[in-house]
């Protein structure tokens, strides 16, 4: 049995897919290095990420399959689920066989799995567009922390670039310790490592606005219709830590 191990980057995954087509040892599993365990009877082949090869696969998906399939692939990849790379490998192999019809193969387990996970990632992305909370840490500076299930920081940053373009902001994924940093002067954002990030204090009137928001939140509910179950269903408890109104 042969496993391909890649460096956990999307380019790495695409490189692994590329290699699978040119190797006489097709992989049983494709795994990001963070999940690797040495197993008996298993040969691990380390894939060296190569931008050109990744690029070729990227464009081949666009041209021979579809932009939808590429999006599904990327979203599913961001789920960081343990076996998703192997599932994506089967998904794309089928894709290169049947072309743009791939997403009609809803009865194929791999297709369904990719769709499901990609939908979950997309759903969390949409949810976070609403649930992210900024606090003011300087005249024009705002900071938001969150702990999403999936690696969606780069998926939500463009939305805030358009919407909150006249303020500087940081979106900090505390789980992965990465962040999107946006500067209003350049109107550009980058993903950055946040290991060395030093928390900045809120400005003095920040507390007042948070209190106002809580007041609003409590006043707008109809007591006769209390429904905590429904509330938790839409706004799962694991997100509450970063929600001002739930503190």
């Amino acid at each position, binding site marked *: 049995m042969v496993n391909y191990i890649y460096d956990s980057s999307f380019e790495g995954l695409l490189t692994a897919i590329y290699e699978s087509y040119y190797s006489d040892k097709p992989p049983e599993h494709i795994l990001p290095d963070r999940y690797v365990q040495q197993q008996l009877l298993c040969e691990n082949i380390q894939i060296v990420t190569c931008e050109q090869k990744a690029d070729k696969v990227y464009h081949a998906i666009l041209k021979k399959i579809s932009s939808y399939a590429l999006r599904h692939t990327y979203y599913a990849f961001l789920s960081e689920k343990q076996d998703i790379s192997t599932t994506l490998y089967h998904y794309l192999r089928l894709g290169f066989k049947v072309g743009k019809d791939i997403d009609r193969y809803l009865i194929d387990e791999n297709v369904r799995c990719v769709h499901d996970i990609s939908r979950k990632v997309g759903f969390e992305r949409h949810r976070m567009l609403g*649930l992210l909370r900024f606090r003011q840490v300087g005249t024009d500076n*705002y900071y938001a922390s969150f702990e999403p299930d999936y690696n969606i920081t780069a998926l939500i940053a463009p939305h805030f670039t358009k919407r909150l373009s006249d*303020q500087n902001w940081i979106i900090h994924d505390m789980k992965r310790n990465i962040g999107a940093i946006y500067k209003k002067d350049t109107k550009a954002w980058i993903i950055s490592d946040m290991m060395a990030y030093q928390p900045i204090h809120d400005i003095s009137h920040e507390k007042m606005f948070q209190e106002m*928001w809580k007041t*609003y939140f409590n006043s707008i*509910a109809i007591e006769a*219709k209390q429904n905590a179950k429904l*509330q938790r269903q839409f706004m799962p408890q694991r997100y509450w830590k970063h929600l001002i109104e739930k503190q």
Partner: protein
Amino acid sequence: METMIKLKILADAAKYDVSCSSSGSSRANTPDGIGNAHLAGICHSWADDGRCISLLKILFTNECIYNCAYCVNKITSDVPRATFTPEEVAMLTISFYRRNYIEGLFLSSAVYKSPDYTMELMIGAVKLLRETHRFNGYIHMKGIPGANASLIKLAGLYVDRMSINIELPSNNSLQLLAPQKKKEHIVGSMGFLQSSITEAKENRKHFKKAPAFVPAGQTTQLIVGATPEPDLNILTLSENLYKRFEMKRVYYSGYIPAVEHPNLPSIFTTPPRLREHRLYQADWLLRFYHFRSSELLDDKNPNFDVNLDPKCDWALRHLESFPVEVNTAEYETLLRVPGIGVTSAKKILSARKVQSLTYEHLKKMRVVLKRAQYFITCKGKYYGKVDLNESLIRECITYENMCSSGHLATGEQLSIYTCMRQTPQNIS
């Protein structure tokens, strides 16, 4: 008065308003501005009653000169009163928006001094937001019926959506409970809004720079269960509102008794939650499934069966059109199958192009078959738990609904024990 106290009073006073959606507009940000509108709308939080919070929903003031029987803010009611300034409304909106608490503003109001005076104050706030703060987020503003057309026209240039509430399902009820509101004013303002929206759309086809006017359209709201009109009247009214005024939405607000009044249900009546829910489902069928109100209800059945969703109820009364074959049925036909919605219908259409579908396939594709099983065939084969017979299917579905939700139509909790005892004998 402190802004915080005003906020408490005026959010509390706005909470019975049910429309909150922030969808339908795609206003873009400007280079030096803040905000944009997201076409599909975004929910930012969920209140303790489970409702989505998308907009900062407040009244400009709750000091009212009218005396609508059902309303907590009526002139004769003893509640704390407050009035915002336009600056306060703008400041709250911007500060909340910058922190991503909200998608924008929903500004409603009681009638303060006069309809015109109230509208002017509200316009002051939205003008400040758009012009001084260069705010490009979503704004929904309530139109005050009876306000001068020129004010409605002016407000429409600043807001994304406007709504004028129809309030009650019949003119009789309106006269009885809200005598100062005139049907002519309400309908007149709606008509004026609609023609202005159409005109602005036409203009924008010819001149790109022509100003936008209420780009997310108009909506309205009515109270269900405060007055005796049956579902049939309500649904027919909605159908006409959609047709005549091109309403984007009609919202139904199940009456929550808050005041004692001889012409209103007693304070101890439970809010008609399930009925409200059935009306929303039926409304959905009108808007997206091409049903007509006369298909769903008639003089013999003027009210929905609260135990069944309206589509299911309809299908059971029209078993002659079923079962349908999933591999050949047209999209519109699939949509009429109970339990099959837009997503499932599209999935079926897409998947059957590469493969003829079996019942197992549908399961794998996660088409929900709990109800659909009785109304379809797959490659000619019927999979319903019981034969195609109205009363048998009705019993099965009602029973399953009760078991899975643990609720009776009245909203009463069912214990597992009562649920088991009521097992119909003929379920195989």
